[in-house]
């Protein structure tokens, strides 16, 4: 539901970046990392991307989204690493549990809320624009 506005922010920041530092060729793929704490729908984000890029130099580019597991740090025992995920049956999505896998204390989130562009795949010889 907030995918459309995030797609717009993404487009805005990517275009700003491309204006400062142009790439030679047409952008075919935009590689994103999405933290698994986010409720965001990947399908909706891809659909929104197709809509907001229409008529821009990024039209026709594909969003490739890699999910990033949640990483945590435990203030009680010092554990740092992957979060525990709910393993029980009957839960339909991967649910990170913010509890230390080692000692059970409440953990701080280190990674898992991000939505970041990490790379672009560019087709050489075809100019952007």
């Amino acid at each position, binding site marked *: *539901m*907030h995918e459309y*506005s*995030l797609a717009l*922010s*993404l487009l805005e*920041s*990517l275009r700003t*970046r491309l204006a400062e530092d142009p*790439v030679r060729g047409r952008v*075919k793929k935009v*590689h994103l990392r999405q933290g698994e*704490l*986010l*409720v*965001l729908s990947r399908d909706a984000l891809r659909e929104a991307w197709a809509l907001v890029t229409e008529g821009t130099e990024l039209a026709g580019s594909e969003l490739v989204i890699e999910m990033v597991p949640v990483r945590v740090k435990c203030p009680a025992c010092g554990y740092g690493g992957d979060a525990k995920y*709910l393993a*029980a049956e*009957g*839960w*339909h*999505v991967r*649910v*990170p*549990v*913010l*509890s230390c896998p080692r000692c*059970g204390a*409440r953990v701080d989130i280190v990674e898992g*809320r*991000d*939505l*970041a*562009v*990490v*790379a*672009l*795949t*560019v*087709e*050489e010889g075809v100019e952007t624009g």
Partner: protein
Amino acid sequence: MHEIRVGFGDILKKQLELAGENYELLNGHGVRAFNVMGAIGSGKTTLILRLAESLRRRGLRVGAVAGDVAGDEDFRRFREAGLPAANINTGDECHLDAHRVHHALEDLPLGELDVLFIENVGNLVCPADFPLGTEMDLVVISVTEGDDMVRKHPKIFAQTDVMVINKVDLAEVVGVDPQRLMADYRTVNPHGIAILTDAKNGRGIEELLSALGF
């Protein structure tokens, strides 16, 4: 074709930074703020009014922010109850974000407040992705929505400090066992606190205030 690493960063990071600024602003004025998320019609506004009533009896100064897609119904209820209040209409958005809340804070007499309740847009999905800079996050549901709400929206419950199950007076009528919701909540969030309330009749309000640190 070739790949270019760009890594210009996180588009949600700005939201986190703005939330941090809100937290500093509120903290600087000595205001304890609470993000009240929850389902549509779960009783968020009534709950906030009850909490405010009790806190004001203890001599605390309470304000409220009403967040809705459109309209000022909740805002007017806060004002009629005598609370300094601000209204946020998100227009096309399904959640409040730190930027919108920042503007609402500019409209409030923060120096004359001890506590601020920010009522988020009724929605169990999107608000989870947008921290506001509050001290604690609450999620409010009511028994009338069914006993599978935690299973349907696990991520918001996994990240929230307190879950309120409201309208418990209707549990029997609608055939919902609040214990099932509480068990699911403990599974996704072993550190969260679950409180049963009947806000309309004032039940559970003191327990909730104590969970919020009052």
